[in-house]
């Protein structure tokens, strides 16, 4: 019993240490930051507790048995016991009872977490693509990608589908996971409780760059969120035609870019992410690379090289043109 107590103690310390170190584990499921995350975490903690208990008892029993009954030379042959009905009943009922104790909160949590969104929830339509995430805010008429801005303390309703194959939206700290499936609409309803940036990624194998389909949920104060909305709703920045960015806009407008990307007032492509406010994002290429001039240049020059299987082709731009386009994109705040 002494040993058991000590084992449990250190196990708990380990879990707490891991859970507490949310800062070092940005995608941890053990540091929930929303009502949904907390419900799940609460349920899991209960199940985990039972699992540890059963583990200790059963493994302990096994260990005890093989030590106590190890064969000794010259010992009497053991008694032939074929069974024991009362024991059978006992060790059938005990697991059933434990499972009922697990099942009841499970079913309750299922219905709780899959309830329809409350009135006043912020709706964001999530569309999975190979290999990036599209977000459309219908009430605000905003379209963006990969980085999901939401206000803290307000219910969020994600209305999700896929444009191509099955993906899975996984934001461990706040939204758990749900598959996005072509032809289906799935929902996640959650209320984030802490300001912060919480990363996640696609969790359903979806092809070559499944590993490179990142996302982040940026939970901000109500005022910061509203400011972000206003910025996103503004038309795309119009650079001075004589500036480098202005030249970049001209290059953009006559290149293949316009076939896939939308910049309000400039191009109407819907295959790739909307770039109207691309400079307001911290990452590019499905959350893969930092959104800075160098990475933008490398990406535009040779996307398939940077991201296996990428549908964005290599853009054969002269170095000058490339520099200009990058400057233009950097101006689209």
């Amino acid at each position, binding site marked *: 019993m002494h040993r058991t107590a000590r084992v449990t103690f250190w196990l708990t310390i380990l879990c707490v240490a*891991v859970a507490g170190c949310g800062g*070092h*584990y*940005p*995608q*941890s*499921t053990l540091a929930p930051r929303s009502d949904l995350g907390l419900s*799940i975490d609460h*349920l*899991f903690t209960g*199940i985990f507790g039972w*699992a540890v208990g*059963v*583990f200790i008892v059963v493994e302990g029993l*096994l260990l005890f*048995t*093989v030590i106590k*009954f*190890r*064969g000794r030379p010259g*010992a009497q*042959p*053991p*008694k*032939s016991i*074929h*069974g*024991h009905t009362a024991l*059978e009943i006992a060790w059938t009922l005990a*697991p059933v009872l434990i*499972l009922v104790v*697990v099942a009841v909160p*499970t*079913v309750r949590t*299922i*219905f709780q*977490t899959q309830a329809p969104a409350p009135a006043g929830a912020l709706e964001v339509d999530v569309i999975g693509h190979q290999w990036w995430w599209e977000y459309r805010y219908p009430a605000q008429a905003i379209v963006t990608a990969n980085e999901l801005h939401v206000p803290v303390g307000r219910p969020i309703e994600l209305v999700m589908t896929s444009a*191509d*194959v*099955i993906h*899975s939206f*996984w934001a461990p700290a706040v939204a758990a*996971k*749900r*598959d996005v*499936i*072509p*032809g*289906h609409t*799935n*929902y996640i309803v959650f209320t984030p409780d802490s300001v912060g940036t919480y990363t996640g*990624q696609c*969790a*359903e*194998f979806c*092809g*070559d*760059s*499944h590993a490179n389909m990142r996302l982040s949920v940026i939970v901000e104060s109500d005022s910061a969120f509203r400011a972000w909305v206003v910025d996103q709703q503004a038309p795309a920045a119009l650079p001075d035609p004589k500036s480098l960015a202005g030249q970049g806009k001209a290059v953009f407008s006559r290149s293949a870019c316009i076939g896939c990307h939308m910049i309000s007032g400039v191009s109407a492509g819907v295959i790739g992410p909307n770039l109207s406010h691309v400079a307001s994002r911290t990452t590019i290429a499905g959350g893969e690379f930092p959104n800075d001039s160098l990475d933008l240049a490398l990406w535009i020059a040779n996307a398939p090289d940077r991201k*296996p299987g990428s549908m964005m082709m290599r853009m054969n731009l002269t170095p000058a043109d490339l520099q200009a386009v990058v400057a233009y994109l950097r101006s689209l705040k």
Partner: protein
Amino acid sequence: MSERTGWKSWLTTVDHKRIGLLYFWTAFGFFLVGGLEALLIRTQLARPENHLISAQTYNQLFTMHGTTMVFLALMPLSVALFNYIVPLQIGARDVAFPRLNAFSYWVFLLGGLFMNLSWFVGPLFHAGTLSVAPNGGWFGYANLTERQYSPGPNIDFWLLGLQILGVASLAGGFNFIVTILNLRAPGMKMMRLPVFSWMTLVTSFLIITAFPVITVALAFLMFDRFFGTHFYLTSAGGDPVLWQHLFWIFGHPEVYILILPAMGVVSEVLPTFSRKPLFGYTVVVYSGVLIGFLGWGVWSHHMFSVGLGPIADSVFSATTMLIAVPTGVKIFNWIGTLWGGQIRFTTAMLFSLGFIAMFIIGGLSGVSHASPPADLQQTDTYYVVAHIHYVLFGGTVLGLFSGMYYWWPKMTGRKLSEPLGQVHFWLTLVGMNLAFFPMHLIGLLGMPRRIYTYPAELGVGNLNLVSTVGAFLIAVALLVFIFNLWRTRTRGEIAGNDPWGGATLEWSIPSPPPVHNFDAIPTVHGRMPLWSEPEKMKQHGPVGHMHVPPGSIWPFVAACGLPLLASSLLTHRLWLVFVGGAVLLVGIYRWAFEPFEV
């Protein structure tokens, strides 16, 4: 008596013992291939942002690792034991349909070769790469596997290869059902059947009912990819989730197909090395049967993130938790077998004990998966990878090793070295726990599965490194085992009929058994004939003419027809249909009308 040496005798063999050995060596070979694939995966994942292996190759590696291990290694290793041991345990001279048995083996071999050929034939398909190995995951979810998103021949190799292998499994399933039901020795009532044979029976029923479902699922995918149908395509109103339902209706019984034989092994090994009967034989048997039935009602627990709705989620959660009960009951009965016994820690026993210890862990993580909200954080992460490897490696593989050490002397006449066996066991136990235990945490810390790399910021780099070390330790353990196999051929201790003091009929005959198995088929009066009436079980030399079926080449010929048929679709050559069909028909007709002594 037919010619018994030379490669022709092996090509035409219909002897269940030889077929068992063929299965063993082929399956073990594929196990090593799957293991190599695992080592490459683990090497790539040992450090974050590693670029040892490209994304495309990685996706092929994890697909083939899963497919190989499930269909080409674990299932056939179980079948190797079914083949060799079941007729001996039930007191039969062979299986019910010896040529069908041979056919199963050849189809398995050819199917496995067909699928693995894909690693090398890229140039034939103008692929631009050497390899066009399957790359859609072992579970091949639509619509990623549709022609639009997987244009090359990779998925075609996968679906056609699996269809071929399915034929082998089905044929074997029918054979063992009839063998166990109809060829038992006089007096061997069903409730006197050794548990390993019982589990073989349940597994065989699962095979013949589950494989038709995946056959249909694969057929639909084949029609979508080759003939323009829309079974899984939304453009015509189809639904990719249909694939998941069909696949998992097969897939869940499949995991019981994978674990029940190993549970059967443990149920034999534990009594022998505790010197006591199995505790609760009736319960162990019935729980196996119950698991077989209940296994049909849980499939959507693989789909908790699909959005089936709260009612479906709740129902499948309940059925999944329910199935934990008969599983747990077995564990308690095994402990009950050990209790009060005189335990001998032979290698076979160690592996069975290891099975129990590891399966408990795998079972517990399984229970956490059974809760849909909790599963929403676990599914598709390394937490699941931990679970499946604890039950499939810690469970099935350890159980199969136990069976190998236990029955090796019966099959070859020599015992595997015990000291080397102990090294193999401990290295394996440590290695597997190092490899798979951290994965629970890796998953909970946010690493999804099926990704070729991960960023350093995730913070799981060191845990992944530990896991990789564990994987290599498993590989070292395997080398020890291979060395043991090789060394035993010439230097293994000669085993008599009964090196372990076993209770069941296979221990009453020489090691290895004569081609006719039993001189006189014994009559049994209990579950443990060698313990309860050892004198009556002694063999006294052949009695009269022993009916032993002659060899036949036609099962092999017929088997060859199947990859030819598959290739016709793969290469878009209609004439191969006629050639393959002709080979198959000729094989079947010659087989059917072959003069065959009954």
